[in-house]
């Protein structure tokens, strides 16, 4: 029998679908019998979904201006 600790140890690979069919069947059996682990797996999956692809804020325009100036300077120096 799989313990909750065993289940948690495999949780990432389970959610990323990086486990073989045999282990997958064992894990899925555990969550049908263990409501706690079912909730943890479900809410962890949702957590990953919410964050996935979260776009960064655009960088402030003055930060970008300084970055491009520094770069142009370096490019000009290299061209000499």
């Amino acid at each position, binding site marked *: 029998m799989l313990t909750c600790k065993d289940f948690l140890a495999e949780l990432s690979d389970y959610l990323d679908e990086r486990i073989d069919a045999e282990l997958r069947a064992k894990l899925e059996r555990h969550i049908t019998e263990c409501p706690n682990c079912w909730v943890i797996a*479900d809410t962890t999956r*949702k957590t*990953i979904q919410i964050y996935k692809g979260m776009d960064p804020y655009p960088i402030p325009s003055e930060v*970008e201006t300084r*970055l491009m100036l520094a770069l142009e300077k*370096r490019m000009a120096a290299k061209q000499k």
Partner: protein
Amino acid sequence: MTASSQAGFDETTLVTQARGGDNRAFAELVKHYEAKIFRLAQHITQNREDAEDVLQETFLKAYEHLDQFQGNSKFYTWIVRIAVNQALMKLRRRRTDKSVSLDETIDTGEDTVTREVAAWGEDPEQQFTREELGQILDASIQSLAPTYRSVFLLRDVDDLSTEETAEALGLSVPAVKSRLLRARLQLREKLTRYFKRKGDDTFAYL
């Protein structure tokens, strides 16, 4: 990334052009990745001024050493590695304790113990405005330990593979995996405070 921001972006071609001396191609690569690098730098340094330095140093170094970029890894993985090194150097300079690393040993197992287990409501994020949701997600990532934060950001937000994340951060694959699990579980728990089904609170008192 959203589909629209990917449209018309051909990284391989731009990298080849940039390596051939095309400065406009390099500038386009910079514009494509600057916000992600700035976000990563802010997460590691926790300091806006340092993050701006890291941003500049990363792209200047990438420009200088473009001939050393091996086409067998992604360009983004390569610049992330430069950015992480620059950010760690900043941290070392700021602290008297010089042993700053993303490879710090972390307790084994205890922090995977979950305290708050509650089911979430349907589409819980719909209960918040975009701004509120953004703040919740940001604050939750910010409260993670730096080593968890970087792994989660690269692996789950930027969608690098486990191997690419390991390469970018200079960690082993097992180290990335254990940090990723802890990061995910800690974030899950933090988000549960906002997203749990209404009424489930009562169980806490039983």
